[in-house]
């Protein structure tokens, strides 16, 4: 019985066992930093550290199959219509896993203590399973997504009354009020060996009516209450049986706890998605369900895409942009400084990521091919503590990306290789871009370098999309990115003007 809410085949789609304290791989932390994922995670978590962990794990392990993405979208749609469902599932799962946490390792573990502990936990878990059943009964027929329907159907068929009765029977038998019955064979020195615990149908000595058993068929003795060694031997003998019972019960408890842990993970994920949607809608930021296309195609068609992290941070709506890059593996964004180029890049990156996670994306329309992995290469501050210079650092980060590249990946470059002379940087960038695009990797490149952009434009005009940050004639920026060839003016003068210059001899009091 698997939860299968996050992917149709079950299994952990992402490993949220990575605790918050565990550092991310360098590649992942680069992406998280560049796209400002922590803001997204915080919005998804809404204060719950477990949801935060799940959000982090999920966004760093996006799905790569359209089927999986659609599967999640449908489940999310269902849960959007019934928000208390997600909360309920999460609460049940949390209560269940908490019961498991309460069992701490005792200093001296004995078979009977292990048995008792496991029975206690299973008792609690039985209660949670009943709640799950109630949940399934409530939503049976009210959900439409493949995932939830299957989940509800599984719960209804597997967790029926006879099954609960079976579990309860095991729990009461685990008290072994009738004593312990074992079968055994003869081992070394004719001692007992190969003990197998048996379910006592009835206590020997209380024979079934009508069945006569002579005295030769059983042999009993009592251990005297003051016989210390005898009581010890008795306990050891009994422990042989209890040991087996404790083991199997504890292992079964572990299995049930594993099921609830999986439920908690998947419920947390959807809860996080819904939290994010709620935050964004409270800021009047529009969202849509994207249309995923299989990897290997070059589809990217977007309307009004914006950066959700920016919106969450500033609390005010952002400017959306359109991008039509079907059949164009390379997208180059040029234009005025602080004209919204980086923001646009982030918006596209986040939208791609969120689509692949199965969430809604921050746009009014989004249709794109899935990619195997997303990488980012954004500027970093020069770190005075490192020995390498900025260019060195950029190269090493690029090297890291190159190590992990797969076909059908997506790479976001933001002002890359600026830490060196224009010509060198341009040459390097050209080489890298053509290599990646040639290998079928989608490249989104933001640059202010005219020569580089121009040369790319001349080489690839039809197979690449060129966008330009808009600048009105009066110098104001609209943060809109429109299709256009690169322009040679760099708009530094009007930026200079806008910040008020560097002061003049007149303004310094003489």
């Amino acid at each position, binding site marked *: 019985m698997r939860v299968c809410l996050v992917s149709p085949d079950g299994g952990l789609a992402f490993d949220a066992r990575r605790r918050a304290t565990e550092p991310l791989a360098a590649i992942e932390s680069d992406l998280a930093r560049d796209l400002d994922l922590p803001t997204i995670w915080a919005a998804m978590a809404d204060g719950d550290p477990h949801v935060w962990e799940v959000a982090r794990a999920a966004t760093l392990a996006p799905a790569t199959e359209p089927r999986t993405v659609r599967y999640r979208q449908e489940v999310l749609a269902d849960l959007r219509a019934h928000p208390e469902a997600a909360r309920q599932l999460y609460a049940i799962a949390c209560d269940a896993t908490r019961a498991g946490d309460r069992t701490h390792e005792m200093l001296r573990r004995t078979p009977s203590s292990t048995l008792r502990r496991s029975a206690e936990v299973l008792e609690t878990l039985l209660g949670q399973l009943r709640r799950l059943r109630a949940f399934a009964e409530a939503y049976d027929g009210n959900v439409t997504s493949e995932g939830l329907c299957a989940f509800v159907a599984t719960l209804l068929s597997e967790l029926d009354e006879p099954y609960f009765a079976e579990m309860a029977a095991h729990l009461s038998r685990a008290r072994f009020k009738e004593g312990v019955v074992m079968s055994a*064979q003869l081992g070394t020195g004719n001692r007992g060996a190969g003990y197998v615990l048996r379910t006592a149908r009835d206590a020997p000595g209380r024979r079934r009516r009508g069945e006569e058993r002579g005295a030769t068929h059983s042999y009993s003795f009592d251990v005297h209450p003051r016989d210390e060694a005898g009581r010890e031997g008795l306990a050891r003998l009994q422990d042989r049986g209890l040991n087996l019972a404790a083991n199997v019960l504890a292992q079964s408890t572990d299995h049930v706890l*594993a099921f609830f842990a999986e439920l908690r993970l998947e419920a947390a994920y959807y809860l996080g998605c819904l939290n994010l949607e709620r935050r964004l809608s409270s800021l009047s930021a529009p969202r849509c369900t994207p249309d995923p296309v299989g990897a290997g195609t070059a589809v990217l068609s977007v309307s009004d895409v914006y950066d959700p992290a920016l919106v969450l941070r500033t609390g005010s709506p952002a400017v959306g942009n359109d991008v039509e890059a079907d059949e164009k593996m390379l997208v180059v964004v040029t234009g005025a400084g602080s004209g919204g180029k980086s923001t646009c890049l982030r918006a596209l990156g986040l939208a791609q990521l969120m689509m692949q996670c199965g969430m809604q994306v921050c746009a009014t329309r989004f249709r794109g091919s899935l990619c195997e992995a997303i990488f980012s290469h954004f500027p970093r501050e020069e770190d005075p503590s490192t020995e390498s210079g900025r260019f060195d650092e950029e190269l090493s980060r690029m090297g890291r990306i190159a190590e992990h590249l797969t076909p059908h990946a997506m790479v976001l470059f933001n002002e890359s290789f600026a830490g060196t002379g224009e010509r060198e940087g341009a040459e390097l960038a050209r080489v890298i871009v053509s290599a990646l695009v040639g290998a079928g990797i989608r490249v989104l490149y933001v640059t202010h370098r005219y020569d580089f952009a121009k040369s790319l434009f001349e080489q690839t005009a039809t197979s690449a999309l060129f966008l330009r940050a808009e600048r009105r004639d009066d110098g104001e920026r609209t943060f809109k990115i429109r299709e256009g060839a690169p322009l040679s003016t760099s708009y530094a003068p009007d930026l200079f003007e806008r910040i008020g210059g560097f002061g003049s001899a007149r303004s310094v009091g003489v």
Partner: protein
Amino acid sequence: MRSAAANNAHAPQAGRLHLDAAWSYLQAVESLATALAAAAPTSRAMRALLSYTVDLTASERFCDLRSDCTRLRQSLASVRYSVHVRGARVTVASLDDEPDYCVEVRRTFERFGQGVTRDYRVPIADRERLDHVEARVLDGVAALFASEFDELGLFCTKWQDFVDPVVDRFRREVRFYLAYLSFTGPLRTAGLPMCYPEVRWRPEESWARDSYDLALARKLVLGGGAVVTNDFSLGARETLLVVSGANQGGKTTFARMFGQLHHLAALGCPVPGTGARIRLCDEIFTHFPREESPGSTGGRLEDDLRCIREILLTASPDSVLVVNELFTSTTRQDASFLGRKFVERVCEIGLIGVCVTFLEELTTMTASTVSMVSTVDPEDPSTRTFRVLRRPADGRSSTAELVRRHGLGSEQLAARLLR
């Protein structure tokens, strides 16, 4: 196992232990026969053993034991019973085919997945003897399965002595060989040579090459140190090795090596070295410095003398002598006198031996004495090489060398003072 059986008074336990002992005996003999056949031994003793064990395993008595054992083991293996513990009452009964509890529990919970999970069993150690609760359970089983246990009793009576006496003797005797092999094992692993010496009765010459003190070598090898090997040779008419030289230079070790070689060769064991011809002796006499015994009336010298006298009176031309430091508790002059007397007598008797001494005049006394010297590194006279070589005693002690090196020898000092 047999001794455990003997020590156990509880019949059902003892009986089973005896049965198991018999079973291991059967298997041991059979595997011995197979192993011997596979090894194709060349020595007379082992070949005889091989044919004996082959005959034994085919013998009627052996096959009888085997069939009895097998049958009884099978019948005991088929015994199954149930034991019910409730409070202070234990009930042993025949099996009623109740369902397996663990299987049932697992079946109920298997729908939750079968992921890897840990083992929660607490280890319960089995003690050598059954405690009395287990023993009473066993009594119950014996009562329930009376026929099987009666058979066990009969078996024990019938086969009280199942071990073939020859096999038993082999077991005792082979231990010596196995012990020696395991003792010398580390030495062989360290690359030290061992060989089978030629053992002769009164050979013209006797010698050994690249030999060493076995006991010291083992200690060194186990401690990670290096072993220095030495040779000795006694040519025609040479009988006594007189060893002198630097202190702590390996003279005593050399003497020990000589004695060990003769002893081990006479035992028939392989000896340290790459080759050796050793004289077979009738007795080995040793004289090492002893502590003064409080009971003796005379001083140490007298004790020394009396010991040597005893030795020389008892020794024969086929004996071997190992002497370490003669007559040290007297003046040089006296020691020299006594030493000469000693060597004369030794050469008269004609026995061979080694004598470690600081009395260098003994090294050249007769034609039968061979001078050997523990050498030092010519570059640095304070370093010992632990090599003992045939060489005339050089009289120069290492201290003299050291003194000379520092320019403090008498001529050197005189020359310096003149300046």
